[in-house]
């Protein structure tokens, strides 16, 4: 077999020199989305999410039939579950972003392209967020089944989308930061899941957090707990959306600081290995 490499056509060569195509972050995000959804990883996570959500919805609706749970509480419970697990899935995917590339040996080929490191990390965050949006879409019919009769469907969906998106952006960014700090994918994913469990734990206490200023500070400092507390305040206690807006400060700050850290520290984070002084 004789192999011959010919230079590309002049037009293609000019485009290659100019680099006028779509922005790098867009190409990376598109490819990452394709990898996530066509490799089956995203679909498996989505399937597991639907199974869990079905089980939770079934349990809450049967409890509701036995009058153990108010219908508003059922909606709140299912929505909180959907947000927490959707954010967890986003975190798992983002935790694979940098360390996964290093482990698979594909990082160097990405680093030698002219795409800015910042664009690479932004593209990866966008792709991870698609998983959150997909889980949210899946949860809509479940919330509809439980909430249609009490007139809180629109509110529940708007709340779930806003709070969940803030948490997904914030924790997805933190997942990528953890991933950048790890050479091993297992370490990165384990650390990210542990972080979410720590943040999610206070919401799972049988009677919530104890009363007192210390626990109030603890609740408000935790983006997951305070975000979910905001959902509860509106859905269960019937507060107006402005009344407990302070609960959203931490999720909002987490999203801004997390995404900001990614964008500004991106060039230092996307390296061949953790700690190597890369260009």
């Amino acid at each position: 077999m004789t192999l011959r490499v010919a230079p590309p056509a002049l037009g293609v060569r000019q485009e290659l020199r100019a680099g006028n195509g779509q922005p790098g972050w867009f190409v990376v995000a598109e490819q990452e989305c394709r990898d996530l959804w066509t490799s089956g990883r995203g679909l498996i996570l989505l399937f597991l999410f639907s199974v869990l959500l079905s089980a939770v919805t079934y349990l809450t609706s049967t409890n509701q039939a036995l009058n153990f749970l108010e219908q508003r509480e059922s909606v709140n419970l299912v929505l909180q579950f959907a947000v927490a697990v959707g954010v967890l899935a986003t975190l798992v995917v983002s935790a694979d972003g940098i360390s996964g590339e290093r482990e698979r040996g594909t990082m160097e080929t990405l680093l030698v392209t002219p795409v800015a490191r910042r664009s690479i990390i932004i593209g990866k965050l966008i792709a991870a967020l698609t998983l959150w949006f997909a889980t949210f879409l899946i949860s809509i019919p479940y919330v509809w089944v439980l909430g249609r009769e009490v007139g809180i469907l629109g509110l529940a969906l708007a709340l779930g989308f806003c709070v969940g998106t803030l948490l997904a952006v914030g924790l997805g960014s933190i997942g990528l930061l953890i991933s950048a700090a790890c050479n091993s994918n297992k370490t990165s994913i384990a650390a990210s899941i542990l972080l979410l469990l720590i943040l999610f734990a206070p919401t799972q206490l049988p009677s919530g957090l104890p009363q007192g200023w210390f626990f109030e500070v603890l609740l408000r400092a935790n983006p997951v707990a305070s975000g979910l507390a905001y959902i509860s305040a509106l859905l269960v206690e019937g507060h107006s959306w402005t009344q407990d807006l302070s609960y959203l400060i931490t999720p909002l700050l987490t999203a801004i600081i997390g995404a900001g850290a990614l964008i500004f520290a991106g060039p230092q984070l996307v390296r061949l290995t953790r700690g190597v002084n890369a260009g």
Partner: protein
Amino acid sequence: MTTITVEAVELTKHFGVHGAVENVSFSASQGEIMGLLGPNGAGKTTTIRLLTTVLKPNGGEFSIAGHPSTAATEIRRCVGVLPESSGYPSHQTGAEYLRFFARLYGLNRSQARGLSDELLAAVGLEQRGRSRISTYSRGMRQRLGIARALVNDPAVVFLDEPTLGLDPAGQAQVLDIIRSVVSAGDATVVLSTHLLPEVEQICSKVVILNRGRVVVSGSVGEVIGTAVIEHSAHLRVPLHLVERARQVLTNFPGLTIDQIEGQPDLLRIAIEAPGTASGAPPTDAMNAGLAAITAAGIPVLRFELEGARLSDAFLKMTSEAVA
């Protein structure tokens, strides 16, 4: 006029207290295939990573295709790289993989599709472009990696151990592609490899690194000459003619003939010292001896020159540096 496309000046890289590359300087010109040689841990991969802006040097300067080391994005736009032990996304097809990289260099979808088809054909993968990379053999993956390194029509191509783990046929295919890269355009190829006979065949220039330092650089002939190697050869003749061959060769001044133990049909011919044969170059004595053997009607079954190969120079240079 030759244009220098790769120039490294006093390039240094430390990982903590460990010096991976120390004051490395060399250059390569347009259309040249430069072999970057050295034992494991010599600093070849680190040098390539410095020149491709993956790592930042602690000292020194370099330029690629006229771009200084500070212009990292411009350098990345004009280099193609096949990293050592490069990984591949196994669920993607070869065509998808190349299209992605073509788009990262600024091509639109249709241009990227056209270019990926051309490159797949150029590396002999046109029939397998729609198959998942997970189904590719190691040789096919290496060829795909080379195609990816060529996706931006690079001015300089860095190939780090492109033949590692390939069978002889796979190695030959990869070397064939490397030759065609240079003959098709004006690219410079920097080739890091352990296949020294192949380097002798295809490289116009060689840089030997050891323990992070350049121990010798120049053309293959210059590098062999720098090593100051004692020239010798192995001559195999039919067993019943060994004694006659020995008699013929003994008449030549400057040649020493020895029987190789355990191999009665093999003679070792050594040039005693450079320039001892009445002022003539030492290889002249060897050539004259060989001509006399054939003139005497002794069939030469094998004649292999020792000490005048790149591998001998390589071993000598790297072992001297260790000592």
